[in-house]
């Protein structure tokens, strides 16, 4: 195994741990909705939610980075340049995340001043981490980009997938600079913030996961490189063709000009089209391989990715994206329903597929199968569907009663939160969150155990044959 692949495994392990932390704080956050006043002034909702959503970003980013460190040396048949530095920075990254989380938990917030921004909490959604940590992330990202680009240069060759990845990494990193500024004007703040968030999750991250899945298909089912690369270019054209101006669907209500209602609505209405293309591709690949692959969990999580992306991002998104609907659904649990489903479908499933792919190779297995992965697959997906369904009911209830009828006042909001369907939805979300957490526990067990007993048997057989 290349050193880069060992590092990839470390990142994928850290990603799994962060996934667990995200789930734990997600469960905690859901408790506040069903127990009013829970831990009031001791550990407020905002703190748990910050760790939940920032944990989401970190576990997925670590999953992406781990995947790329895993695939890159095999792509170029050489060790990654600067791997020593990358190995060091992995530990720095983990330590920084731990410090940031501990400060969030034990300090929580500071007074209004630069000290808070630099060392405690920047208070902007998804990028609450203090500036010192944001600088750390930039350093890690720059070294990561150096690893990828320098290795490609030293190899004196590139591939289609790698070229797309490198081209994608540049805007991905540049966009992160929005994690730093503090702007008085909220319209301006949110305008640039959405450049970061949307052009990450609905543009550059889509291309990134496309590259990772292209590599996955080559290694999983032996897909032809020419085919996956051609398809990757088609995907990039469609996803960026719709997603770049689809950014406008976040510019309906933040003070920006009215033309964004038309532009954002039209382009985000087109966003499901490439996702349907991805479903067709996934079904094609699955069918031509008779729904079989040696690594069954990786195969099924890859399929889940295509369908989850379409339903969570496409179906759920289209429900609420047109301005006449969005006026009422905006900023309700309806948004949370779409957000959970889309992140899970578009990214969570794909990263888990790579977990299994990397594990199979690292344990010397040609394939993987068993019972535990099926249980975790079922529990995680059923748990997610349950949470998303519950949030949808709550969100529609909110849009209807609080917004459309109630006129969106504080009284309308507060009375809405006490309505029976809303409360029952919050309980359902909590219960399905527990199901999801059980699925995670089984996933962790499976990731630790799968392939190991047979690996030990193979090593013994090799030792006997050699003696």
């Amino acid at each position, binding site marked *: 195994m290349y050193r880069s692949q060992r590092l990839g495994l470390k990142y994928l392990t850290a990603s799994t741990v962060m996934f667990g932390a995200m789930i734990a704080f997600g469960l905690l956050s859901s408790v506040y909705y069903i127990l009013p006043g829970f831990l009031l002034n001791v550990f407020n909702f905002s703190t748990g939610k910050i760790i939940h959503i920032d944990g989401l970003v970190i576990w997925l980013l670590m999953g992406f980075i781990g995947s790329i460190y895993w695939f890159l040396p095999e792509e170029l048949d050489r060790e990654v340049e600067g791997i020593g530095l990358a190995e060091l920075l992995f530990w720095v990254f983990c330590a920084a995340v731990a410090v940031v989380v501990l400060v969030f938990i034990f300090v929580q917030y500071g007074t209004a001043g630069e000290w808070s921004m630099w060392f405690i909490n920047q208070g902007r959604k998804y990028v609450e981490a203090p500036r010192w940590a944001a600088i750390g992330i930039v350093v890690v990202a720059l070294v990561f980009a150096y690893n990828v680009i320098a290795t490609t240069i030293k190899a004196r060759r590139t591939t289609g997938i790698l070229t797309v990845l490198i081209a994608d990494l540049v805007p991905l990193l540049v966009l992160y600079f929005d994690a730093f500024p503090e702007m008085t004007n909220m319209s301006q703040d949110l305008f640039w913030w959405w450049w970061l968030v949307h052009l990450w999750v609905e543009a550059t991250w889509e291309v990134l996961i496309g590259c990772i899945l292209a590599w996955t298909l080559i290694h999983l089912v032996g897909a032809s490189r020419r085919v996956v690369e051609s*398809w990757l270019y088609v995907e990039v054209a469609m996803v960026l063709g719709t997603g770049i101006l689809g950014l406008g669907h976040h510019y309906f209500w933040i003070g920006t000009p009215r033309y964004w209602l038309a532009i954002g609505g039209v382009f985000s209405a087109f966003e499901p089209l490439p996702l*349907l293309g991805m479903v067709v591709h996934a079904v094609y690949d699955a069918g031509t391989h008779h729904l079989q692959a*040696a690594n069954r969990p990786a195969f099924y999580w890859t399929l889940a990715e295509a369908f989850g992306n379409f339903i969570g991002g496409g179906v759920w998104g289209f429900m609420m994206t047109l301005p*006449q609907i969005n006026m009422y659904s905006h900023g309700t649990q309806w948004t949370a329903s779409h957000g959970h489903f889309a992140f899970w479908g578009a990214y969570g499933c794909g990263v888990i597929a790579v977990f299994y792919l990397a594990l199979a190779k690292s344990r010397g297995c040609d394939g993987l199968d068993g019972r535990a992965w099926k249980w975790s697959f079922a529990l995680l997906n059923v748990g997610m569907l349950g949470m998303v369904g519950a949030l949808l009911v709550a969100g529609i209830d909110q849009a209807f009663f609080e917004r459309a009828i109630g006129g969106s006042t504080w009284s309308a909001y507060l009375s809405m939160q006490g309505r029976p369907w809303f409360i029952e939805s919050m309980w359902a979300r909590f219960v399905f969150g527990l199901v999801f957490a059980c699925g995670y526990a089984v996933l962790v067990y499976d990731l630790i155990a799968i392939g190991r007993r047979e690996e030990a048997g193979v090593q013994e057989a090799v030792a006997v044959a050699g003696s």
Partner: protein
Amino acid sequence: MTPHAMVATALLLGAFVAAAGAYGLLYCLSRLWDQPQLRIWSHLSYATLCAITATLVALTPLYFGWKILIVVSCGAYLLIPAVTWRYLTRLHPGEKMSHDPRLAGHVNRSMLGVHRRS
């Protein structure tokens, strides 16, 4: 737009894309397994998509421009599975597809190599 119309329209919009997805899935399966029943179901899915489109156009208070967009999307969703499928089959000239649905559930161990279990 009344509150009821808002919720009904939103659910129809979600059903619109869901029907498009169902059509795409059934289109692919009908070509994979070459079963007449699947073709019928795929046509029915697209018919459902058209019915939802007609409902959105005729009965919802969406602005005229959005209705045009939905009609155009309905057409696009008809083309995407077919165009994508043709593109993929031309890209994969050496790959054969199984026309026997029984093979879909069959594990061919000798073809796939050794399996490791958890």
